[in-house]
């Protein structure tokens, strides 16, 4: 496998006369965590749909190698299946049932839901459900994780907890991640690289590198500075004197 499992090469996309992307180029390295932020309706989710090959670009090309898994905005667990059965969807390509069982148990342990293995999604809290969604996408040696605002339906505190949870899971099971979010804190707390998209037709406005190990505290100065810089880029805050941490560098 290449070291650049995901690549957009001058990709454009139009729905009829509406241009969504204009010659977007982006290379994502193996194991990199990239967050995509931008104004609502700018095509963040469409970007994921392109990366997952659900949509075909109008021009340009998209290269993705490896097993791609998507985590959706809304409840996408099958409500008629138990936690175990839902997670096991991610093991369908594993032939050996003993191996399936082993991986499933390991995953249930990782997300701390062993005692909920036989529960149905409607019997779980929102945070638990989202952990199951992550587990389903992570299990079975997936390579690329596409996260479409995975925590947007959760309350604030649960959302922060889940960020730490995701960081912990990725520490155990490293993946290449593209996270689309409107939550700038979330991007700053999790991503190695943050891409700010412009309004439609979307292009990449700017990128920020965050060189700080995960898990990061929300109030860590680097995170705070990054949030500030992104907000400034989006024209919501003004770049003040406090935005000068050496660990954050605009590229």
């Amino acid at each position: 496998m290449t070291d650049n499992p995901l690549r957009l090469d001058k990709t454009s996309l139009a729905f009829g006369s509406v241009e969504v992307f204009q010659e977007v180029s982006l290379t994502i390295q193996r194991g990199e965590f990239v967050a995509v932020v931008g104004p609502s309706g700018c095509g963040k989710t469409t970007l994921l749909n392109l990366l997952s090959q659900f949509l075909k670009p109008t021009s340009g090309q998209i290269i993705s190698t490896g097993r791609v898994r998507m985590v959706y905005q809304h409840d996408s667990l099958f409500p008629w299946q138990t936690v175990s059965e839902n997670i096991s969807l991610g093991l369908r390509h594993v032939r050996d049932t003993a191996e399936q069982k082993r991986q499933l148990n390991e995953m249930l342990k990782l997300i701390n839901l062993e005692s909920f293995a036989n529960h149905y999604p409607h019997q779980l809290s929102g945070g638990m459900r989202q952990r199951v969604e992550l587990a389903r996408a992570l299990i079975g040696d997936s390579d690329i994780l596409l996260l479409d605002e995975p925590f947007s339906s959760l309350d604030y505190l649960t959302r922060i907890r889940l960020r730490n949870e995701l960081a912990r899971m990725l520490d155990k099971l490293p993946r290449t991640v593209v996270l689309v979010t409107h939550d700038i804190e979330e991007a700053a707390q999790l991503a190695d690289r943050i891409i700010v998209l412009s309004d439609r037709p979307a292009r990449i406005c700017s990128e920020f590198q965050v060189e700080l190990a995960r898990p990061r505290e929300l109030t860590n100065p680097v995170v705070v500075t990054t949030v500030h810089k992104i907000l400034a880029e989006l024209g919501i805050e003004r770049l003040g004197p406090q935005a000068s941490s050496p660990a954050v560098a605009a590229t």
Partner: protein
Amino acid sequence: MTSNSPSSTDRLLPFVVLLVVLLIWILVSFLHLFPTSVFPSPLDVAKGFVEEVRTGILFDDVIASLFRVTTGFGLAAVTGIPVGLWLGNHARARSAFLPLINFFRSLSPLAWIPFAILWFGIGDLPTVFLIFMASFFPLVLATVAAVANIPSVYFRVARDYGFNGTEMLMRVTLPAIAPQVITSLRVTAGLAWLVVVAAEMIAGRAGLGFAIWDARNGLRMDLLVSGMIVIGIIGIVLDRILMQLTKIPSVRWGYDR
């Protein structure tokens, strides 16, 4: 979820109500407010009931009615649900057929009684036909609506995880519509049970509906009331049986939220 299971005293409440109704009935007939020829006493009804049981007529009538309902309703279920699935998945066919199905759904099945007798004579067949006509169209419509309501993300996920066409049907579409379809099966079974009584009154030579009509013709109001009670009780039992389907763990999600 709202699972306020009734306490033991709450469970007794319906029986208290029944007892009160029975007492009022006893009182009214004891006071002879109405002539017994139009208002039978509970004792007369009980005697009539015992008589019907002893002669075996009641048993035969119950079997006849249940056979017709299960046949007509069963046929409607095994044809109506697949038709609903097909229409639910084919937009053009749906817009072509839905007005017609709505038309027949709105048409009282009893309007078919003359044709049912002309075509099928008297006996099981016309009644089964009428029950089928009563159940088929509502089941089709409920299934179409259920299919249309499946969130598209389920199919997206199924595609992501490599489901083939058969698996999409068996492991996504069917379980996704199951709660709604079960609900409409319960409603439709109730409808079928209403229809069988009416149909048998006219097109029957046996069955509970025929028994009611026969009792009326013989001016046996005691048998008439005993028949009514049996019909009501069987209706409740049928619904209770179908309600068991809602207790299957993999469909609970459709009722618990």
